[in-house]
């Protein structure tokens, strides 16, 4: 899979010496990793280790406040002025944990809002594109439903349709399989891979679902709340095969591989 990607180019996302903290409480320190173009990058670790917080830093919902830097390509996101930040953000698509669809708008309006604002499409065209995006996630015919009228899994897929409305360069997923049954979760994984392959997007996924991690991830970072830093990075499959760290092995084998 990796062979098809262009090596030696600038990493898509680079995180340098990032320390994540809430006030004076340090959650994780010394984060250093980079995400290559078209990676499916997994942020993993046990519950409460700061995975979702790292995502909030990456998408700019939390400021680094001088404790480390985040680069997108060659642009420094942490010290960017609001205009540049806005420009970088425009290339993101984010799927939040609960979908976070705007509840006062129909699905078509949810997907169409960014299209209407950031493109020159006419309202009729916006609706067509929105329908297409909804069809891509298997929600064709649900354009005029409100988020409260559809199931949790469907909300998540609609959230994905909204996240990819503007054909973003980077897609962020916060726990995509949380609250989904195994089959829906598998379908979502397939969809993520399909999007990566067809659109060439870079994908960053926060998850602790082992099945997903091995199925889609080709690069990762492992956060450990005990030592308050990252203790492994690289392809999850390689980590499973070669990592010597008992904590990583324990996680990747559901706690069964300690003695091996």
């Amino acid at each position, binding site marked *: 899979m990796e062979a098809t990607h262009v090596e030696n180019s600038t990493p898509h996302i680079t995180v340098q010496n990032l320390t994540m903290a809430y006030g004076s409480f340090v959650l994780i320190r010394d984060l250093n990793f980079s995400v290559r173009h078209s990676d499916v990058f997994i942020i993993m670790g046990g519950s409460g280790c700061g995975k979702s917080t790292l995502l909030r830093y990456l998408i700019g919902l939390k400021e680094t406040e001088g404790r480390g830097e985040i680069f997108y390509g060659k642009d420094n996101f942490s010290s960017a002025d609001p205009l540049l930040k806005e420009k970088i953000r425009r290339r993101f698509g984010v799927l939040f944990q*609960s979908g976070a669809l705007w509840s006062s708008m129909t699905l078509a309006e949810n997907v169409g809002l*960014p299209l209407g604002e950031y493109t020159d499409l006419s309202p009729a065209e916006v609706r067509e594109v929105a329908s297409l995006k909804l069809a891509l996630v298997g929600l064709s015919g649900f354009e005029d439903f409100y988020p409260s009228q559809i199931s949790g899994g469907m909300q998540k897929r609609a959230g994905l349709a909204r996240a990819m409305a503007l054909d973003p360069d980077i897609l962020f997923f916060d726990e995509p399989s949380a609250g989904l049954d195994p089959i829906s979760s598998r379908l979502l994984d397939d969809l993520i891979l399909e999007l990566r392959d067809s659109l060439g997007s870079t994908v960053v996924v926060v998850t602790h679902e082992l099945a997903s991690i091995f199925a889609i991830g080709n690069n990762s970072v492992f956060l450990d709340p005990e030592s308050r830093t990252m203790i492994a990075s690289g392809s999850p499959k390689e980590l499973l095969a070669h990592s010597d760290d008992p904590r990583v092995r324990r996680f990747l084998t559901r706690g069964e591989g300690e003695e091996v």
Partner: protein
Amino acid sequence: MDAATGMRPAPSEMSFSRRDDDTLLVWLAGSWKLQDDLPSANEVRKQVKSNPRVRRIAFETQKITAWDSGLLTFLTKLVNQSAQGQIELDREGLPSGVRRLLSLAEAVPEKKGARTEVVQPSFVERVGRSFIDSEQSLLEMLTFFGEVTLTFVKLLRMKARYRTSDLMLLIQECGAQALPIVTLISFLVGVILAFVGAIQLAQFGAQIYVADLVGIAMVRDMGAMMTGIIMAGRTGAAFAAQLGTMKVTQEIDAFTTMGFSPLEFLVLPRMIALILMMPLLALYSDLVGILGGAAVGLGMLDLSATTYFRETMHAINLTDFFGGVFKSAVYGVLIALSGCLRGLECGSSSSAVGDATTSAVVTGIVFIIATCGIFSVIFYALGI
């Protein structure tokens, strides 16, 4: 099960004996459940203390008929006690299920620092803290006010982005849909003012001036203020709850990451809707209040409709109306500000949404009354 067989469970029992010179044998028998009246772990400690040579505690539990977390808590206490007294605890005699659960509870050591000491701060400290907090919240309020002002500048330069359909919906919600409650309250306020005045003025035979009193009070102050208070409770609370919930469900995060400013998208239409609707509601409230006063004047004071309305028209002038309308627009800004600010500040739990709503109403009403007082002084000084 016991109830079905009609048998009372055997009470929990504990007795002691010595196996060896240094081993205390604890005999447990009967039912060891939470609802049973269980013996205290301190009794074991007393036993240990009275026999200084005891270095081990062993158990004999053959006669236990039933157990649940009651037995486990009892044993956990013993484990802690004996660890402190450096006494060995022999778990051999315990039921195997109990042994497994005990070791499960001990599998993950207590996280250091996770248990925080709750220290009751002194009175002085609490006063100091709340002062520092209030300074902080004042700063946040001013920042928010500044940001909203900048957003308004954007609106005037036609650069603000919001959905017109949202604005229309909000105008409907805080305009037409507020009419019934405004009607009821304003009419009653008019009636109350008329009664208050009538009792005093009747002593001079000057009932006719009830019309002046009600008219001036409603138009200058009460119309705008009552509408403001109604809208703070009705719409300000709704704004805080809506925005707070959107915060909890990450909808606001979704706006931010897509480059939509929540201030433009959410706060601006709410503010415009209230600024447009408040003066209209206040004018309507003036009218209904005067009608309420008239109802008392005509029904109880034997004034004729013509006299009453001629007197009212004589008493109030256009400046009074403009004053009231201006005040109501300002109240609209204050209600929208406090509602949206509290909503956007909301934490990420359902109780936080409740707090935000309460706080929005309280802040709104305090702002309205304080501003009303300030306006009264200014208007008096200006001779309006």
